[in-house]
């Protein structure tokens, strides 16, 4: 598809739709029926731990790998059989993959030349693309002469210059040192929003996904665990994995006394003796043992003997984090739970009692098979 003349940039963007994409390497299933749609102009962040299949998925969308099954469409056009060169996508590689033998300008012009755009127009569009990433006038520089952050921006300018239908970003910030990463991330977010291009971004960093993605898709073991707004994933994790991977979490074992369509009553096990409370969570719960999921900000310290207290334990360590601190409380049977506190932490080693905040929305998940929590406290 060739777009003629000057149109507004967002008009180049198109919907990206994946349906039931599956891939195996030998015996190992890397992707297992992944489906989602990225509406035109949206930035979707593909988040997941290493080995979750997110990079493979991106490479399949780019055309460097072929899926064993499933379809990929751009708008109405099926593209899974198109070679990468004819997909009209832009891609920023993890290590940028800038051509070291070409200048900055020649790198950015590369995709335009491949599309047989007239020479005069190329120079103009290269200048525009470089200006957009704050590198106006850098055309003649060599790649080895510019900094890592500038290389990252050249890579972005190169990918965007041909005005692709879809932009693919493979861990675009992982190669930068931490101080530069924060700033570059803000710049990238601004650029993406301004251009309004359909974007698929792969990252293993939650902060990056939340900051850059309009929506976030969490991938685990080749499956899509949840897709939604960042706050949805944070507040209403669909699976135990999502709950553990996103943000800071504690899981404590509880008894589900009564479960029906309107909710459940939880007692016992790690809870303080006699403590019980009701959860409005519906569906999928059976009576018996389950894991109660809590974020540190769902709990608060309470006075001894408070009738609403849920946990009693000993404070064992505290992590100061600016405006608030995270206090680790040891429950009976050496289980631990984390609570966020705003004021000064209590003396360590002393017994403390915890209750749920009024606005807390904890959830129940089926009891974990093993004691290790995926990504807990990450």
């Amino acid at each position, binding site marked *: 598809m060739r777009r003629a003349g000057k149109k507004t940039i967002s008009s180049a963007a198109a919907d990206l739709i994946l349906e039931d994409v599956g891939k195996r390497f030998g015996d190992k299933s890397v992707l297992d029926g992944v489906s989602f749609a990225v509406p035109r102009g949206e930035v979707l962040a593909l988040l997941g731990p290493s080995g979750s299949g997110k990079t493979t998925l991106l490479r399949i969308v780019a055309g460097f790998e072929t899926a064993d099954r499933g379809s990929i469409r751009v708008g109405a056009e099926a593209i899974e059989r198109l070679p990468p060169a004819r997909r*009209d996508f832009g891609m920023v590689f993890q290590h940028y993959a800038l051509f*070291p033998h070409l200048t900055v300008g020649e790198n950015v012009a590369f995709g335009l030349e491949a599309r047989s755009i007239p020479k005069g127009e190329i120079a103009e569009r290269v200048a525009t693309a470089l200006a957009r990433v704050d590198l106006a006038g850098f055309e003649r520089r060599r790649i080895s002469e510019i900094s890592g952050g500038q290389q990252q921006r050249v890579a972005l300018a190169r990918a965007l210059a041909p005005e692709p239908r879809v932009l693919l970003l493979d861990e675009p910030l992982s190669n930068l040192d931490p101080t530069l990463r924060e700033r570059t991330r803000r710049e990238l977010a601004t650029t993406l929003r301004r251009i309004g291009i359909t974007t698929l971004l792969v990252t293993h960093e939650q902060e990056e996904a939340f900051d850059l993605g309009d929506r976030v898709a969490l991938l685990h073991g080749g499956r899509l665990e949840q897709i939604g707004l960042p706050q949805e994933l944070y507040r209403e994790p669909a699976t135990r994995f999502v709950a553990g991977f996103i943000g800071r979490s504690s899981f404590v074992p509880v008894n589900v006394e009564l479960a029906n369509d309107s909710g459940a009553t939880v007692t016992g096990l790690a809870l303080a003796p006699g403590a019980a409370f009701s959860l409005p969570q519906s569906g999928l719960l059976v009576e018996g043992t389950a894991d109660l999921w809590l974020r540190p900000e769902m709990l608060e310290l309470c006075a001894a003997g408070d009738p609403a207290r849920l946990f009693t334990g000993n404070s064992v360590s505290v992590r100061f984090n600016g405006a608030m601190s995270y206090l680790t409380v040891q429950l009976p049977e050496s289980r631990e739970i984390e609570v966020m506190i705003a004021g000064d932490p209590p003396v360590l080693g002393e017994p403390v009692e915890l209750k749920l905040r009024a606005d807390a929305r904890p959830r129940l998940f089926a009891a974990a098979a093993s004691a290790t929590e995926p990504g807990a406290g990450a």
Partner: protein
Amino acid sequence: MTAAARRGWIAAGLFLFLFWLVAYPLLITMLSAFRGENGGGLGAPIAAFVQRPDEWTALFRSLWISLASVALAAAVGVPLGFLFARAEFPGRRVLGELLALPVALPPLVGVIAFLYLYGESGMATRVVGNLLRTSSAPWRLTGAGAILLVHTYSMYVYFYLFTRAALARFDGAQLEAAASLGAGRWRTLTRVVLPGLTPALAAAAILTFLTALGSFSAPYIFGGSFRVMTTQILASRQNGDVDVAQVETLFLIVLAIAGLLVARGLERRSRWRVAATQRGTPPERRAVRSPAARFALTLAGWLFALLLLLPHLTLILISFVPPATWTTELFPPVLSLVNYRALGKTAEALRPVMNSLWMAIAATLGALVLGFVAARRAVDRRPGGAIWARSISLLVAIPWAVPATAYAVALATTMSVHAPLAGRFLLVGTVGILPLAYLVRALPATGQAAIAALGQLDPQLEEASAALGAGKLRTLRRVTLPRLRPALAAGASLAFLAAFGDFVVSIVLYTYETRPVSIEILSNLRLQETGVAAVYGVLLTALSAAAFLLWGREKEVR
């Protein structure tokens, strides 16, 4: 057909073609060495070979000459490598470059330069004889000593370059670590530095051994009755003992491969293979402080450089000596351009130069294309391609390990029969045989360079090109080839040097119409036309040096 299946078929086709080109002639030769096609029956040629003591003598001489060449080349090259990698003194840069010069000199030209310098009526021989006031020559440049002299002169370069390169990569922190652990200089050298150099020294030793084993020009010119395997093979062929020549070829190949395997085995058994991947900053060069030592070192360096350049200078001088003007005088009494003018007078005189040029260029281009195509398959790790990768890279390397004489005989054997169904074509005696032989000989230079460069090429660069909408051709032209350019240029310049200056393969396979410069030099020598031979030698050297300087040292853009 799936992409993997298509890749598999393409790789299989390439494998077959390379096998036909590289391995098949050797196989045919070995088979006919067993069969005794020219009478005698099965096993007869081998039996004849085994029973002849002079064959065993030649085989043994080949072996010990090669081993002695390794020892001598190491004795000269390794200390020089240390000196130029570690010490700083006036003229180090220029001298360091000059030291690599003998490697760019075509073997036959080097040999005749030695002949003009140290031969019976050579320059140095006359000067020394005059000083000693003896009427007979003070030495005779014949036999094993002469061969070893030439070998040391041209092969120390391998040890020198490899030692220097390995020391330049050597992590200086290791020396500091050794010193902090209380190791003195000697202990550091023997326990840290030399072990770290083992891979480089082993590689230089293999290269020297194979080069010496395949060396032909020096034994041919200086050997006389002192025959080694390569000259023995040619003598047998010229006597019409085709079967015996094939058996000799077989034994020479076996010797080469045995040497290669022994060296590889030793290297593998050593514990120091990791050193090749070392990273770090090399230690500072140590400036030679004492003025006397600096002076001595510099003087020694320049004297050594003069010694290295003396053969070239002599060659140039002789090229200006008109025929039959220099008899008993110490220095040539007449110098003129007459030899050079003779070259320009007739088209026939320039013909060998033109022949060598076009054949070397054709062979280099062919080897370049084939080497690149083979390298692409040799680094292919994708399904379908991966199973062929190893065998293809092995085929590309084979001509490197097989002595040139053996190859020439194998091609002469295989391509002197017209049997298209058996993959044999009548090429001997045609224009095509020499370029083809040069191409096969050049394949390792271009192929290995391309394999190494492709192995280091970031695969994401090609993906980035595709992601930007570039098709396969554009990616090849704009990304892959520019990235490979320095390696390919270096490989091509080596290939061209070898083909352009070739004597070994040519003497077995040339026809009058395609006679190359080296053959013309030889026939002029036989006619006592030393001046004309020198002119050809100068031309060969000058064009070789030009090619080397032009393409051999391109730097990568980072």
